[in-house]
């Protein structure tokens, strides 16, 4: 399973996405649409840290890192390669 699919499954199962996994596009807005709310961001950080072995810093809590599945995957990739 690709990183994006792993992230997609997490969003569908744990966050406020009410559609199917197929309906959740890589560029679908997660923040604007309220899919990631305040509880969700805590869960998302925990998920990223445990699944991808990265540590999310306070100054990395920016909307652009969490806007879409593409953004999250890019964020994870940048953490891995640094």
């Amino acid at each position, binding site marked *: 399973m690709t990183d994006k699919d792993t992230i997609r499954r997490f969003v569908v199962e744990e966050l406020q996405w009410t559609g199917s996994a197929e309906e959740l596009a890589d560029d679908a807005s997660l*923040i*604007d*649409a*309220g899919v*990631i*709310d*305040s*509880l*969700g*961001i*805590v*869960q998302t950080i*925990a998920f990223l840290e445990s699944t991808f072995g990265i540590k999310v*810093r*306070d*100054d990395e*809590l*920016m*909307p652009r890192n*969490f806007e879409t599945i593409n953004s999250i995957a890019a964020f994870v990739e940048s953490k891995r390669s640094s």
Partner: protein
Amino acid sequence: MLIDSLRRGAERHPAKRAIVMGSEELTYGELCGLAAQFANGLEAAGIGSGDRVVILLRNRPEFVISLYGVVGVGATAVLLDPSSRSHELGHASRDCQPRAIITDAPGSSRWREANESTPALDFTLVIGGDGHADEFWPFVRDRPTTRAWHAEGDRVATFQYSSGSTGRAKRIGRTHDQWLSCATALAAAVGFDADDVFLCVMPLFHSYGCEGLITGLEAGATMVLQEHVQPFALNRLETLRLARAWNATVLQSVPYMFDLLASAPGSEPLPSLRHCGCGGVPLPQATFRAFDDRFGIPIRQEYGSTETGKMSVNVDRDPRSSWASVGAALPGMELFVLGEDGEPVAAGTNGRIAIRTPGLTTDHPYGDADDSPFVGDLFLTGDVGRLDGEGRLTVTGRTKVFVEILGEKVDPAEVEEVLAEHPDVKESVVVGVADEGSRSPVLKAVVVCESPCREDELIGFCKERLSSFKVPSLIEFRDEIPRSQVGKILRKDLIS
């Protein structure tokens, strides 16, 4: 009348900014004119005095224009959470029978979904976005910017649904006079005036945010709205940037947001902020300290409710000593702490908090039941606390959550405090749950752990420290305690 705030502002300082969001700015003159145009449009559409109009919007200038326009024709603005699920919208729709709705594209489709089996509303106005053409600005354009405003102060201006942290959400109606009595009392106590700049991060549909808006506009201040607030962890830097860019003097928020501001990366100060008001839930000392250490600003607690509006604010000269207090009653209001017999207790003694205030709702679903919070002309807030010798209130907990175990009344807070002493426990919430094995409810502790822990270990820990009927029978381990948007623990989600 609520609209008088805008009329006065338009007369005294028409070119002064009233509302700001992003690059959009509306002066008092413009805002008053737009409210009139909107109201004239409603009237032309046959919506007027006595009608209910749903406003289902996030914080934005159109929210403010709609609110003042709706109440200005003598209609009632039904303020709903824009992130409401369909079943919540359906409940509100059946409950208040609205004739119109002002919303955005996502809100419009969720409303239609929630009301599939009922006829469409008489009037719908959808603000553009997400591929949907805008209807709002064409609607207000070209209409007269003045009108004869509705003038009955005792007309219900708003319907809001109380947070429903215990039981089903209840509809609370408040009149123009009730809103304004709280706005003027709060402004007098804190000293809000036209030089103030409010940074509005709380949702405007909710009583706390709405009261801030009404109070600020009544004082002639500038209201800076932040476009995206949730999730706050991702948007707190924008809050700090706006506070500096606009020299905000007032920020009203909840402890969880003050925590996130205190821990935000960066080190620039916020010299302009003179009043950081905190409400919704009691302020933890750790939050007070963290924010004070970071910014040198002592958070001041404010105490209010949907049913009453603001009741008190801590305006103590020495807020670092009195940080735990929510202050004395606002001018024109009286706070009491009552014993079991309904009589006021001595200063320093805990009891049930009650208020006498002109801001109290007179439009609510509570009848004459024994457990009604309306007792004579007093309102029982559902909180427990104590007054000091100077009439300053400290809130210590909630009354409604006493659980009866085997005929004994258990205060969950007491059990939670004991659990907090266990080194592995981060936080806990204790509730009463039905148990098939026994006829009486049993105590369940929902626990979030710092480090792994076992049920029998925690129960044993409680047995050593509490009388037997106070020891939880069940422990449920969770990653997180469910909370509402303003940080209130959703106890009903734990009882299953």
